[in-house]
């Protein structure tokens, strides 16, 4: 191997990389939070809404799950202006991520709702629990236990997927990498470092989520 590695230019750009990483995290967290609101609304609509609404939600889920995220971003960023809706690249990126994660979230939340059986709620009532207590101990905790693993892995997938937003030049980590590599021509070094940064974020969230699960959501062993 005759290639000479040179990371100096990449490391010199650390403020840019750090800012990019921060932006990626903010973008993903924001998208997840809004996306969850969409997911809860969609799941309620799907389980107890009127038929046309249920069909519309099904259509939304299938459309999003069966088309690439990149094409969804392009439609929102390049396509919507044709309809008179002009968004900045960051807003378009956030909107695309919300629309995307919302579709996956609906199915997750719905599974959580369906994991609660009617008999358990009745059991709570017959134990003399007040409605708030029933909600807290009988509905909320088991539902969260049921959806927690899919929800947290969905967040990590979303965070990794946010790198695709660089395609419309949203300000996040991959776009920062693109800027640095076009300036320094150290393509491999830049993308290697940035890949490690994504890996570090994943490992961080894996362990945080795992810790939370063990501390608060561990099911009693039988």
């Amino acid at each position: 191997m005759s290639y000479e590695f040179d990371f100096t230019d990449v490391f010199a750009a650390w403020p840019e990389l750090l800012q990019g990483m921060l932006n990626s995290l903010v973008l993903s967290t924001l998208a997840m939070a809004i996306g969850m609101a969409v997911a809860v609304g969609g799941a309620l609509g799907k389980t107890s809404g009127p038929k046309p609404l249920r069909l519309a939600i099904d259509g939304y889920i299938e459309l999003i799950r069966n088309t690439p995220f990149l094409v969804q971003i392009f439609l929102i960023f390049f396509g919507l202006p044709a309809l008179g809706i002009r968004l900045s690249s960051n807003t378009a990126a956030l909107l695309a991520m919300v629309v995307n994660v919302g579709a996956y979230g609906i199915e997750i939340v719905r599974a959580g709702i369906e994991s609660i059986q009617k008999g358990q709620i009745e059991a709570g009532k017959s134990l003399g629990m007040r409605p708030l207590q029933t909600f807290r101990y009988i509905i909320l905790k088991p539902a969260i236990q049921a959806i927690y693993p899919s929800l947290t892995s969905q967040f990590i997938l979303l965070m990794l997927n946010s790198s695709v937003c660089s395609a419309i030049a949203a300000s996040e980590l991959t776009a920062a990498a693109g800027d640095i590599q076009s300036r320094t021509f150290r393509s491999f070094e830049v993308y290697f470092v940035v890949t490690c940064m994504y890996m570090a974020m994943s490992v961080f969230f894996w362990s945080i989520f795992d810790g939370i699960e063990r501390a608060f959501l561990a099911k009693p062993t039988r």
Partner: protein
Amino acid sequence: MRELGPNEILYILAAVRWTVLLSIVAFLGGSVGGVLVALARTGEIKWLRLAATGYIKVFQGTPLLMQLFLAFFAPGLFGWSVDPWSAAALGLSLHASAFLGEIWRGAIENVPVGQWEAAASLGLRYGPKMALVITPQAMRIAIPPTIGFLVQLVKGTSLASIIGFVELTRAAQVINNATFQPFKIFLLVALIYFLICWPLSAYSKRMERKLLAASR
């Protein structure tokens, strides 16, 4: 500026073959790699098991786009220059190896312990045990998630456009740059992806339900 005419539509439609071909190549490459990863992950050699786990974690913990960038730039370190097609095929194959490996590991581990013991008590060695007893049963469990991953892979090929491979998404960008009809063009492209992916998703879902019903 050009009009969005039949020729332009045809150019986009013709690019579908590259999306399909890239998906097939990546799926085949990923299948070979996936078998190796799954066997290493479930095998009895400790360092192989650790290596396979690490391989899976790295590909699950980094964006596919980064994997494609590295597949594009890393061969340059050895003085090989790769074209976008080879880089995309390589990157997606390695990516698929990790995910298929993890899916198939789960399927292998789902085969009841009694079956392993039965195979061992029949005196079957590792090769025949895996080929004749474990794999046929694991395959049934593995089909729905494998098809589900194939959908992810088809969608993932769109990222090859970012490293410059002219498949469906890139072809749409090229036509959009000439005609500037982004809404129509990307809607058409989304529809084409949908027509490829939706039947696969539906099939995967149906198989999963069937399997669930059979296990009750």
